[in-house]
């Protein structure tokens, strides 16, 4: 895991001191709200419906037990005893008090954390594959490049005031678990015909009110040119991206209106000019960063553990959890253990202070002190010995964290919605809770199979509804909450934007509508092997629409 060097340490300490001074001046009245707002946003501090909200950065979703314990401590001391994991692999506190925020940032800095680049029109926290360094299908660990991007983008003077926010995601595996095609820039680590490793660069993806799938601007970028190419893309965007209308200011609109061929021409021309300057990555620097992400000291183990198999045979609940939440590891005898933050009937992504400490203890004891946050609002212990899985499961179960629903209908991405968010039109969390209760039978969920349901409380699409196999969008109809359903969205390497099925449903009808859609799928699928998305792609919208509105 990356550790701060002297530069990082000084930089964060300076920022903590600066923001402490700014808060003091705001409280004293030396700064107006108009003057203070951009400063607080640069430090991840929003004012939401009922309170301030502080968004803490977890670069590329990787953190350790000490950091988790610190977040638990902050939740307990300064907030209401819980935190909320977000779709950018960050953590939000929903109830901090303004005067406490400088202290919170000081405490975060003690464990090499901060809230920089979690808001504002800058390059945001780069996200990545939660299984990085552990996935069996990985070409290279993407976190090395995420960290290089973090260092390059942190307070980049040219890109601190972009037309709009800018999100980058990197995957190093053939399966895209980082949704790179719905990011402003998506980077996929690939091998070319010569066996060289580089990046396929996607640009102009995004969700919000104008969802777009990113287009390939370069099929193969040699690794040493990563930063010069990113700089070229950002420079073109910064120069000709629209600033007259915030709804048309993202790079996806520029790519759409200008055309990918012209964007490519402009980017390549700029890149030719700068690619052999100081931005060219020195190999020794890549090696230096790589060292931080070298694999932990794995033991040499058999591919399967006898103890693991016995426990799986003896304990049905453990077997169910393994089936849903445990994923193959690249190292023989190890496994990737997913921790669902979607227990039945609860707020997706929430975790209490006590639960955070349980996860920290388990990570320290069983996963080389590593934890991952996922963009799907879950956690991961990336390197667990198979023979330790039962102990991990037992610890999670005692803490209410062993829900066996990964990738199933109750494992929803859900934005905070109108219960917290000042921008939302409708509530998201109660809808998710009701769906979770409706499908509470875990065997029924397994029978339905993989189904990614995503809920947004407004068109800003923080709940990723556009790429949900089933998407739900909350809309305001004369002050009342209504919900539109989309079908066929997908966030992985076959990314697609879902299509609206028809008229929206009232708050008290939306759960029935979702259940109807699921039942229609169960009726028309070609056996249990055909997933919801496969069935939808085969039959299209018509049979769903016909039966849902019959």
């Amino acid at each position, binding site marked *: 895991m990356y550790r701060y060097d002297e530069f990082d340490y000084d930089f964060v300490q300076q920022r903590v001191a600066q923001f402490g001074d700014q808060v003091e001046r705001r409280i004293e009245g030396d700064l107006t709200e108009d003057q203070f707002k951009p400063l607080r946003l640069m430090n991840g501090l929003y004012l939401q419906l009922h309170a*301030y909200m502080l968004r803490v950065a977890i670069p590329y979703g990787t953190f350790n037990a000490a950091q988790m314990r610190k977040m638990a401590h902050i939740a307990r001391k300064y907030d209401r005893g819980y935190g909320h994991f977000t779709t950018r692999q960050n953590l939000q506190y929903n109830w901090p008090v303004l005067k406490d925020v400088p202290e919170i940032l000081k405490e975060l800095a003690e464990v090499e954390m901060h809230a920089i680049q979690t808001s504002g029109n800058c390059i945001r926290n780069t996200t990545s594959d939660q299984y990085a360094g552990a996935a069996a299908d990985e070409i290279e660990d993407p976190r090395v490049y995420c960290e290089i991007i973090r260092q390059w983008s942190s307070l980049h003077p040219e890109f601190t005031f972009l037309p709009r926010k800018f999100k980058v995601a990197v995957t190093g595996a053939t399966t895209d678990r980082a949704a790179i095609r719905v990011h402003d820039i998506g980077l996929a680590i690939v091998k070319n015909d010569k066996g060289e490793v580089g990046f396929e660069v996607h640009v102009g993806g995004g969700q919000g009110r104008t969802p777009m799938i990113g287009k390939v601007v370069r099929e193969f970028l040699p690794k040493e040119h990563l930063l010069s190419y990113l700089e070229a893309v950002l420079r073109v965007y910064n120069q000709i991206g629209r600033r007259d209308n915030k709804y048309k200011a993202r790079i996806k609109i520029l790519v759409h209106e200008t055309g990918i061929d012209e964007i490519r021409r402009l980017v390549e021309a700029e890149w030719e000019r700068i690619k052999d300057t100081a931005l060219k990555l020195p190999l020794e620097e890549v090696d230096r960063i790589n060292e931080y992400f070298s694999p932990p000291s794995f033991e040499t183990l058999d591919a399967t553990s006898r103890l693991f198999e016995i426990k799986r045979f003896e304990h049905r609940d453990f077997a169910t959890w393994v089936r849903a939440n445990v994923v193959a590891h690249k190292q023989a005898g190890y496994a990737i253990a997913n921790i669902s933050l979607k227990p039945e009937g609860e707020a997706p992504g929430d975790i209490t202070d006590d*639960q955070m400490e349980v996860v920290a203890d388990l990570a320290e004891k069983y996963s080389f002190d590593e934890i991952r946050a996922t963009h799907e609002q879950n956690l991961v212990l990336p390197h667990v010995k198979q023979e330790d899985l039962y102990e991990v499961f037992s610890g999670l179960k005692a803490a209410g964290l062993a829900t066996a629903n990964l990738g199933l209908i109750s494992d929803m991405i859900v934005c905070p919605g109108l219960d917290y968010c000042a921008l939302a039109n409708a509530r998201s969390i109660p809808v998710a809770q009701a769906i979770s209760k409706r499908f509470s039978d875990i065997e029924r969920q397994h029978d339905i199979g993989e189904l990614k349901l995503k809920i947004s409380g407004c068109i800003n699409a923080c709940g990723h509804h556009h790429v949900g196999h089933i998407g739900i969008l909350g809309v305001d109809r004369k002050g009342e909450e209504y919900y539109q359903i989309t079908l066929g969205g997908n966030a992985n390497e076959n990314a697609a934007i879902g299509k609206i099925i028809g008229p929206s449903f009232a708050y008290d009808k939306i759960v029935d509508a979702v259940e109807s859609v699921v039942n229609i799928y169960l009726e028309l699928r070609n056996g249990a092997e055909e997933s919801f998305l496969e069935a939808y792609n085969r039959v299209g919208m018509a049979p769903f629409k016909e039966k849902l509105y019959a």
Partner: protein
Amino acid sequence: MALQIMTANRLLGGEVVYFSENAEWTGDFSAAKTVDDSDGAAVLLDEAEKAEANQLIVGPYLVKVERDETGIRTLSVKEGIRAKGPTVHYGHGLRQAG
């Protein structure tokens, strides 16, 4: 003119507040001072401006409300949630909202 009240968030804590009949900023929605004409609205706007200048509140705005036999009530789901707090438990049910 529709019945209106003045709301904002408190600067220090961010909590929802209303300008009350007692000329204070209170978290109690039912205590909000109501006005039904432009002169009354202007008074509320003046009070909000003063409170902003004194670092008491941020983001003040007028909200339309209705009055029935039980008192005033909000007209939108959003203002209802602002008045009462989140409608959901948080922290996996271990703590209550509000």
